[in-house]
């Protein structure tokens, strides 16, 4: 995954791409953390007032950039002009994403299974479920692009 691939648009610097990824997933992690804390300690809705909008806005801002990979100089999934190496890099990102999503899927299902009968926090309100769903609706489509944005190295000076 370390070979540099030539993309049609200039590739954004690695630092910038990683900031976008951190913004997207950091925002969603903040939302999940606050919902878990509220459920665990039976806190009032006041705790949601600031972190939830903040987290969701961060996820939206980062997610929008990752949903249009060409803005970061990364290949689009449906681009027929991609060469074989670009296609392979994108497929590798999907493979890693499958493993990550599969692991999250299994862990979350296992968590729901274990949480019943234990004193573990669970989402109960429609608001909590809506927020989780909205975050997942952004997280899942952009995950392969996020992996590619995170792992693709900056081009060597001679290639720029």
């Amino acid at each position: 995954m370390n070979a540099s691939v030539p993309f049609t648009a200039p590739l954004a610097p690695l630092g910038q791409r990683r900031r976008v990824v951190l913004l997207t997933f950091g925002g969603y992690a903040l939302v999940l953390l606050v919902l878990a804390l509220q459920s665990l300690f039976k806190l009032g809705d006041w705790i949601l007032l600031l972190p939830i909008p903040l987290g969701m806005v961060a996820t939206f801002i980062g997610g929008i950039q990752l949903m249009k990979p060409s803005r970061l100089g990364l290949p689009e999934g449906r681009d027929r002009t991609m060469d074989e190496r670009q296609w392979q890099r994108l497929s590798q990102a999907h493979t890693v994403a499958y493993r990550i999503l599969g692991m999250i899927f299994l862990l979350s299902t296992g968590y729901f299974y274990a949480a019943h009968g234990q004193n573990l926090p669970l989402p109960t309100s429609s608001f909590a479920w809506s927020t989780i769903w909205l975050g997942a609706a952004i997280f899942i489509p952009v995950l392969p692009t996020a992996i590619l944005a995170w792992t693709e190295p900056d081009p060597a000076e001679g290639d720029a």
Partner: protein
Amino acid sequence: MSLRTAIRTPRPLAPQRKRRRIVAATGIGWSLMVLGAVLTSGSGEASVLGHFVNGFGLGMTFAVYLMLMMPWKLGLPSLKGYQADERQHLQLLQAYTLAYRVIGVAVLLGAMYLLIGSDEGTRLPLPHTREQWYPVFWAAILLVGALPTAILAWTEPDFDDGGQA
């Protein structure tokens, strides 16, 4: 790149009809498991029927599932196992790409179902107890573990007569 190109593996590729039977049997067993899980969240006779359907589906799935967990036995490549060449590796990556999309849609639909079902106005069956989550947990494990191989097993064509090793 298309999945319609035959690939070669050290073990002879099992006939497509056999591979598809295995995938179909796993899919039917898995669907029965999920249906049983839904029924068990009901009450009375529906719950009893749900346990029966779920157990039957689980047994049926396990009977054929191991074949998908050991793709080399069907002459198929795997990420950790044998891959003859780059083309074969690409076929496998393409199966993972499709599997990611399927799992992604399944997760989103599942979360939407829980979202709608958590509204007290609706009467959708939802798992509430540990026992009701148990079959859902198993269904998730089986789906994630076998889906890429199942896609490859279903789509990989038989070798041409002239191309048989």
